[in-house]
């Protein structure tokens, strides 16, 4: 199986779905000739033409809103938000419209839309090119939210999102784009929305998370296994909404010690809900308080290099927290 970059997995998913279904199209800022500011849509306009890979004016609300209209009309738009930090102007269209179209029309209308947005820091992006906006949209029923950590999942989840009959927010991690490579089959497959995945089997502690920090957890787990004999069980949520309750509870029950990790700031993040689900259903199976290791509760990470490093999770931070939990 070919090993490819996370960013290529995303592009391939779009390419293949566009080949498969003429109603799929891409719109956003700089997605055309330039191929996106990260290169995610590179080559698509050349292959599919200007109509299906549309450079839009710089206006996220109408990018989302026109995509919503086109989706209601039966198209399958993929709207790119250049950075997730810049999707907030589209909040009203996403929360008031996309999320509620099926419900408010009692299933008469639907909105099969994908909104792709790059999240995460570590690229010297500073406060406004590094954010994780998941928690703003999480908890809005009617939206689905996915956030893959691997190239395999990125491709499979994006295909699932494009084929999904409901609006899906696809949060791709900028830091993963070129850093994460893994085996991705050439043939068509989808990763089902709503299903978590065990990345590593273990017996001592459970780490639950999504996106980039899981790779730190995996590295830390390897070292902890070698150095301390601590075996971490690692669960990739993959889908943030709807959360895979069974998957979460199973993983938590496996070890009775849970560490939840995400780069988004701690308060009000996805981790709070994961913790609450466990506290609600599994309290008596726990051998330690439920911990969260997340970005700090400041508005956004600074751009200066030591500041950025200080704010981001990394293998060492994960390892320390995991070891502490194992020893609890």
């Amino acid at each position, binding site marked *: 199986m070919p090993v490819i970059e996370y960013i290529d997995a995303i592009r391939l998913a779009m390419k293949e779905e566009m080949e498969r279904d003429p109603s799929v*199209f891409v719109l956003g800022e700089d997605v055309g000739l330039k191929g996106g500011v990260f290169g995610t849509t590179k080559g698509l306009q050349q292959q599919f033409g200007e109509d299906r890979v549309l450079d839009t004016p710089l206006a996220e*609300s109408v990018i989302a*809103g026109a995509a919503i209209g*086109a989706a209601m*009309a039966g198209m399958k738009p993929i709207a790119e938000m250049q950075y997730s930090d810049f999707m907030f102007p589209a909040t*009203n269209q996403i929360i008031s419209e996309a999320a509620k179209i099926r419900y408010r029309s009692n299933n008469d209308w639907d909105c099969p839309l994908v909104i792709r947005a790059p999240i995460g820091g570590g690229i010297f992006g500073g406060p406004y090119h590094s954010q994780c906006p998941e928690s703003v949209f999480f908890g809005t029923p009617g939206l689905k939210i996915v956030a893959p950590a691997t190239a395999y999942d990125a491709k499979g989840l994006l295909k699932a999102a494009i084929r999904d009959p409901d609006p899906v927010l696809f949060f791709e991690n900028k830091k993963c784009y070129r850093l994460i490579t893994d085996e991705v089959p050439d043939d068509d497959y989808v990763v089902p929305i709503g299903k978590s995945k065990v990345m590593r089997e273990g017996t001592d502690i459970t780490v639950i998370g999504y996106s980039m920090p899981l790779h730190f957890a995996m590295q830390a787990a390897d070292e902890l296994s070698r150095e301390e004999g601590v075996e971490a069980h690692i669960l990739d949520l993959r889908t943030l909404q*709807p959360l895979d*309750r069974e998957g979460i509870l199973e993983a938590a029950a496996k070890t009775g010690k849970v560490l939840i990790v995400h780069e988004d700031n701690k308060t009000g993040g996805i981790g709070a809900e994961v913790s609450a689900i466990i506290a609600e259903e599994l309290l008596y199976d726990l051998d330690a308080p439920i911990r969260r290791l997340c970005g700090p509760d400041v508005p956004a990470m600074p751009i200066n290099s030591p500041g950025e490093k200080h704010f981001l999770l990394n293998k060492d931070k994960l390892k320390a927290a995991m070891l502490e939990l194992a020893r609890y």
Partner: protein
Amino acid sequence: MTQTGTVRHTHRHAELGISDDKAVAMYETMTLARGYDERVQLLQRAGKINFHVSGISQEPSQVAMTFAMDRETDWFLPYYRDYGVVLSVGMTVKELMLSVYAKVEDPNSAGRQMPGHFGSKRLRIVTGSSPVTTQVPHAVGFALAAKMRGERSVSIVSFGEGSSSQGDFHEGCNFAGVLKLPVIFICQNNQYAISVPFSKQSAGRIADRAIGYGFPGYRVDGNDPLEVYRVVKEARDRAVAGEGPTLIEIMTYRVNPHSTSDNDMAYRTKEEVDEHKKKDAIPVFRQYLKDVGLWSDAQEAELQVRQRAILDEATEYAEKAPFQSAEDSHRYVYAEDNAITRVETGSESVGVVSAGKGD
């Protein structure tokens, strides 16, 4: 290119290509919208229903603009006062009554949404919401889809002049202008946004904004439905010819309070309102039809009886109709054929229901 004055002895509606039958149908739709509106106001005052938002005085132009469209191919994105639009497109009074009573058979939302929040895929009426102006980008998206698929379909979207202050108005118009999309933007300028008069809403003319987007903008008298028809028809012709969008500002006046919850005497005078009531376009249009020999007092009497019967029957039906069950009110958060995301239903335990609790 203008044909004004070239066909001297033809009547105005015929000049515009409106058949006699169509002219009469337009009139009957106007009076039906008016009758519906008045009836619902009575029902609200009688405590039968909670809330009504009136379109009175705006129906003539609403009907005219809709009749100028192709009701088989075009997409309609009305706003909450657009009874004239949805009745023209084919929604029935019974359906509207079901909506105002919030009953499950309401095709717009099964009684989930406020009345005036229209939607019917069958009738090509796009589902609308309460936050104003969100429908403008949607109309642009419908036009984009039509263009991409090579369909001769035009989308037409209404909003008030207050709503035109929203960013979505600007973003939608600008986007459509660049791509020359087949969409018609209709601003129903009824002079008020709840209590805020137009003078505090904008210092310019809404129609003039089109200049900045590179497409035509027109201001038209809403009390002249034939002129509204003409301008919208022309806009539609331009749209299907690939010439892009048009912005049309229909000058009208909201003679009723903003809604049944509003007391408009807190911010305007009875004199001002009465002044505008005198300009009502319905009697003028009736007189026109009489003048051209298409209408008579006898027909008027028959119409009143016929429409009253429709209203009575609809009211009775809607009043007796059932609500959506509590169980079903949990449905359709997500598509139901998608097992993973089906939402728990049928639970008495509100709050324990959680979206996406899979299986």
